[in-house]
């Protein structure tokens, strides 16, 4: 492998990693703070992509598509939390898995009824469809570079929000010890709703950014959801920092595994990694709960 190819694959890995991070950020917070396993996260990712593709198609503007996709996803998350999921915080994980899995099926068919069975396309914004030479002779697509940078920017912003703001303090408090935080006067209901909306907006953003690269179709969120769950578990439930590092690690390892190893082994690699990490550190890389 030449240096140029190595750098290109590394960038592919980081780009994949930041997308995974956007998905896992919401998942790990919801899991960590509300102790809620939310499988509808993949549906919200899909909703972001569908809304964005539809709006971008109708208006011809990628930016409008982006805004409506992200806000649509956040609204869907808020709505789901308020109407259904809120009732399941105190229930067992099995109940949560059942209800959110059921919701995946309901929304898949609902989307099929609205948008039909054929996949949609979301055009790439003209300004971002070019290439930049990262090495002589190696052109990297501008759009993927933008995803990479946007993902990193969101990660940095989230870091400051969680570590250096009052809301972030509540989130951290809720994440490490729910009951005490509640006893100290944190409005948990509002906090939960807010975390759900922000997490959903991130999932929606991941969906919108993936839309020009992939098919916008029913079930597009499922494989991403599985990887995001792996990231959440490996990073340590409730830890944003853990999710970020685990997402980058999984993105890079998966990318190199796919091109360097035989197909069967390459696709197993991240799950082997998960098994090893969980064997050594059963609660993930970063333990949040005391």
């Amino acid at each position, binding site marked *: 492998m*030449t240096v140029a*190819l190595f750098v*290109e*694959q590394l960038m*592919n*890995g980081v*780009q*994949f990693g930041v997308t995974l991070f956007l998905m896992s950020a919401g998942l790990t917070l919801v899991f960590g703070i509300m102790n809620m396993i939310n499988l509808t996260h993949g549906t919200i990712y899909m909703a972001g992509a569908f809304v964005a593709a539809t709006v971008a198609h109708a208006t011809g503007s990628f930016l409008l598509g982006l805004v409506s996709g992200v806000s649509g996803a956040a609204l869907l998350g808020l709505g789901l939390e308020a109407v259904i999921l809120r009732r399941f915080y105190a229930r067992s994980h099995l109940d949560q898995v059942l209800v959110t899995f059921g919701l995946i099926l309901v929304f*898949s*068919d609902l989307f*099929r009824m609205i948008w039909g*069975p*054929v*996949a*949609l*396309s979301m*055009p*790439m914004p003209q300004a971002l*469809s070019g*290439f930049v030479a990262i090495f002589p002779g190696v*052109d990297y*697509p501008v*759009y*993927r570079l933008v995803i990479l940078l946007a993902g990193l920017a969101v990660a940095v912003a989230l870091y400051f929000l969680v570590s250096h703001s009052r809301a972030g303090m509540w989130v951290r408090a809720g994440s490490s010890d729910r009951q005490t935080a509640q006893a100290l006067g944190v409005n948990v209901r509002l906090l939960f709703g807010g975390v759900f909306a922000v997490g959903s907006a991130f999932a929606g953003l991941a969906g919108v950014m*993936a839309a*020009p*690269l*992939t*098919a*916008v*179709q*029913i*079930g*597009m969120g*499922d*494989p*991403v959801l599985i990887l995001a769950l792996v990231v959440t578990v490996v990073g340590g439930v409730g830890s944003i920092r853990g999710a970020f590092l685990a997402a980058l690690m999984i993105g890079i390892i998966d*990318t*190199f595994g*796919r*091109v360097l190893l*035989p*197909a*069967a082994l*390459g*696709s197993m690699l991240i799950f082997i990694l998960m098994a090893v990490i969980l064997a050594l550190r059963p609660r993930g890389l970063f333990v949040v709960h005391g």
Partner: protein
Amino acid sequence: MIIEKTATRNWLVGSLIAALTSLGAHAQSQSPIKIGFVSTLSGPSGVLGQEVSDGFKLALKKSNGLLGGRVVQVTYGDDKGAPDVGRQLVDKMVESDGVQIVTGFVFSNVLLAVSKPILDSGAFIISPVAGPSQLAGKQCHPHFFSVAWQNDTITESIAVEMAKQKVPNTYFMAPNYPGGRDQLAGLKRYYKGDITEVFTSFGQLDYSAEIAALRAKNPASVLFFYPGGMGINFVKQFAQAGLQSKIPLYTSANTIDQTALPAIGDAALGLSSSALWSEGFDNAASKEFTAEFEKEYKRVPSGFAATAYDAARILDATLTSIHGNIEDKKAFRTAMESAKFESVRGRFKFNSNHFPIQNFYLTKVEKNAKGEVVAAVKGLIDEDHTDAYVGECKMAAE
């Protein structure tokens, strides 16, 4: 009391039988033909089952809901692409509904899981898509017919074309599952240039790493077999990596069709594919089918809809020729074997293993006058192509 009831019922049944017998063959033709339609209608591949059922329903509508002049009663079932789900549906259809024909199958793994109980019950299978090698070879059966293709032939045909074009080497990419491995076998059967084999995991969304490795290798051509959403993703990302105009892209028949082209858009332009049917076909049956399908469903049909349409058309033609009498299984089978009908593909005939002998054509993705991205026909690849397994089939008499 109970005895009395039974007696009354026996009397009723008896007189009914008497009435039916006195009416004879005429009465029989009045009872509906029972068809089981098991297809993949939901999940990521649900679009394929939708195409198959839309094509089948369109043909039924064309013959006023009749096949061979008899009313048909179709029971639809969604196998979700899972063999166990298909098996449950089929068991019910065979045991309680008493279906006489089962059709609809998209995936070979589902078909293989259900073929035995169906064939054992004496019912017929008319496959509109799935064509596994087992049923074309050693396990061929007098009651099994494939109206579509044997799976390997969809890549064999493009391999014939690539050999004809003297493409010096190719970079073969497919998902890592039996269907993908079969396509490699099909490629090697007819293409003798250098082949780089790359298998990726099934359902993969992002191919950036594979495409970077591909570009570093700089092959003379790329041949991929990515059905469904995988194909959409791969073709888009191949173009986005700036390779669309640099490396010629080939794919197997029915891989990138109208279930994918609208979602890929301009990124698919220039893609070469083999096809047993494409929306650009010029014969009368095809033009009629395409026009009616677009009128009914407001979209351009895919090859899946076309073969399903053919499946219903061939059933209608065959049953008409035997006056709708499907109860005479031997007559039905013989009539199927030599069926004459207007296929949207033009010429059509069954081989001795009940798989089609058919022409494959070269298509290239272009924009048509309406601005739609379509696969335009560019010539004949192979005339009367037969599958590689027909020699292994010893067809039983009945």
